């Protein structure tokens, strides 16, 4: 639970890339895909992204573990588009108000692929980026205020602790006779009580952590950085990779004639 945010021994190539470079690459792909709902651009991007998996140390099992809500959301989006979009072309399935035609199926498939192709880079980015490195890059290179960035980073470590604390408080309250049985109202009350208990603990921990940080000299206007965030040749490749994937996706869709600008409305 507590290690959910760390890389857990991932030594893949992309873990060494600068977080800002990786982020730029992701943005490039996302923007290109956001422009058009079509299955060609989405599937080209998706194919490239799957090829990047080993570079990020990601496997299909890990992807499902971390990204299943996104995958399910993409699937739901695709399905509902397929049955709800205006029909054109041959009708494939007709159940009363719901119908799937060739045209709506194509649109739904485009939606599904696009959802996946947009979600995957984010999962890729998370799985090969250490929060500490991200904070270093944001503060040193993106010039965000270091007090804010480091404060957030330290607080994130407490989030894992809070997950453990939630379980303990749940047990401690059961030992006081507050059960998770009963009517929905009783259950809601029990959950609210547990949340309050957790909040009290969170505030206590946070203020103690703040004292620890202040006692270590945190909060001054100036500081040095033991870990210097730098760009390397690898980062140029990462950005170039993002550019290539988005370019290939757009070119393929235009070549196949499926390019379908969202903002220009549907034909």
């Amino acid at each position, binding site marked *: 639970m*507590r*290690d959910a*945010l*760390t890389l857990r021994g991932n030594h893949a190539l992309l873990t060494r890339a600068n977080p800002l470079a990786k982020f730029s690459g992701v943005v490039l792909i996302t923007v290109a895909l956001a422009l058009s709902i079509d299955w060609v651009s989405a599937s080209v991007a998706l194919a490239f992204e799957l090829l990047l998996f080993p570079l990020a140390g990601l496997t*299909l*099992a890990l992807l*499902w*573990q971390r990204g*299943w809500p996104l995958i399910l959301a993409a699937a739901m989006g695709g399905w509902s588009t397929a049955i709800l979009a205006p029909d054109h072309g041959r009708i494939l399935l007709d159940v009363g108000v719901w119908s799937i035609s060739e045209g709506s199926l194509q649109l739904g498939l485009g939606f599904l692929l696009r959802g996946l192709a947009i979600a995957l880079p984010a999962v890729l980015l998370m799985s090969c980026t250490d*929060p*500490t490195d991200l904070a270093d890059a944001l503060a040193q290179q993106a010039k965000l205020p270091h007090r804010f960035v480091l404060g957030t*980073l*330290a607080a994130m*470590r407490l989030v*894992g*602790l809070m997950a453990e604390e939630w*379980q*303990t*408080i749940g*047990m*401690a*309250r*059961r*030992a*006081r*006779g*507050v*059960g*998770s*049985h009963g009517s929905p109202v009783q259950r809601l009350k029990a959950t609210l*009580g547990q949340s309050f*208990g957790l909040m*009290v*603990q969170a505030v*206590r*921990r946070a203020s*103690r*952590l703040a*004292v*620890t*940080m*202040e*006692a*270590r*000299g*945190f*909060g*001054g206007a*100036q*500081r*040095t*950085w*033991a*870990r*210097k965030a730098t760009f390397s040749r690898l980062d140029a490749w990462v950005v170039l990779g993002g550019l290539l994937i988005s370019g290939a996706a757009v070119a393929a869709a235009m070549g196949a004639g499926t390019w379908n600008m969202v903002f220009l409305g549907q034909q």
Partner: protein
Amino acid sequence: MTSVDDVRPAAVTARGWGWRHAGRARPAVTGLDLDIRPGERVLLLGPSGAGKSTLLHALAGVLGDSTAAAASADASADAEDSDETGSLLIDGAPPRARRGRAGLMQQDPETQVVLSRLGDDVAFGAENLSVPPADIWRRVGEALDDVGLGGLPLQHPTSALSGGQKQRLALAGILAMRPGLLLLDEPTANLDPAGVLEVRDAVGRCLDKTGATLVVVEHRVAVWKDLVDRIVVLQPGSATDSAVLLDGPPDLVLEQARDMLIAAGVWVPGHVPATRARRGGTGLEGDAGAGQLLLAAEELAVSRERPRRTGLLRGFRTVPPVPVQSGITAQVRAGQALTITGPNGSGKSTFALTLAGLLAPVAGAVSATTELSAGAGIDPYKWRAQQLIARIGTVFQEPEHQFVTGRVLDELMFGPRQLGRGEERVDELLERLRLRELVDANPYTLSGGEKRRLSVATVLAAHPQVLVLDEPTFGQDANTWAELASFLSELLDAGTAVVSVTHDAEFSEVLGGAELKLGAPQPGVPGLPGRTNPGVAAP
């Protein structure tokens, strides 16, 4: 291992110093006059409320915020603002102006760690003091060596450290700042005996090397007595008396103030607080009425993790967690104590929580006899919360986790109200655990000892036949300790079964009964019994 020459021991001077926290009527400290010479090692003692922690926080420069201090300096002091009187100086300047001259270690190991990688955490303080990066990594290496963590890689996750290791890591982070003054606020109160010695020895080594000044607050005098060369006893401030009650070499002060310190709940070396003796010895034999089997664990495997569901590719199967300990067999009998001991990570608390019906067993079974279950079924984990509290009461290590109301009296009435019976027992508990004065107080505002007494009382208000306690004596002063031990010995004689997880040998000696020793953790070997010897009577 050179360049410790840049540590300059700091001097502390207090003249008529006092501090009142924002929103409090009474000051935490008044009229403190104290001189600590560079390189001196001082143990700070005194009853709770004497302002020991306040003094340490002030020296660390983390007391109040600077804007409030500035506001109260020019305007008339408002009760809402904190208030400082007199002067408190490090090397002749206010602590806030001496950032990095003092390093503070607090009690809770979890909040002494700032970052998630070992090396980064040690570097944090030095970075904030704008030390050049090349020097920082040299200091990090030295500091980790000095606290005995040099064998771990810099990338090591800080979440994987034990409590004692976390406190040593905190010490390394402080050392990397090269402070002239080390401030330790009950640094070992939350640690097991091995962790206590680990931290104490690391502090000793670092002081020998750097010659820094030390001020440590700690109840357990025996741990620090040989490391310090001066003991200062504080007393709660008043207008007429000085804040310093006694001041001198350890042996002299301990001799002069022995009775006063014992009365204040300080753990004075060579003194075990008097407790009530158990009737009929350990309660193991002889007593005809006692000894009824109430609860049994058989070949139990325990874990805090819940069963996990696999992903799509493996067909969403349910995978049981890897147990931290397995093959535990134990029996809980009326009027008998069962003490669970073992090294850190051996699953003592996890076992106790499983026995108490709060965690589901990974393998094996916990079963209640009809004597205990009284119609509620054999498996305590399946009981409803109300059924559970009337049968098995569990006192958690952190009392605050169990508070469910905003008032001490409501807190005590909570169990009986849930059950619709037993409110008359509350009065007796109020009296017995000295909570009557506090009935209208908010549980969260009580002192550590009061919280502990309240958490025991609230669980007992539901009149369980089995009482399970997780490290009940951790961080407690000698008075609370003695009260708790005496009270539990009384309960045992009255027929309650008491199961306690503890490192405290003196405590388990008072309770008597059997000891269950759990062996070192054996993860990944399900079905292989842990090294357990249930039912072996403690001497």
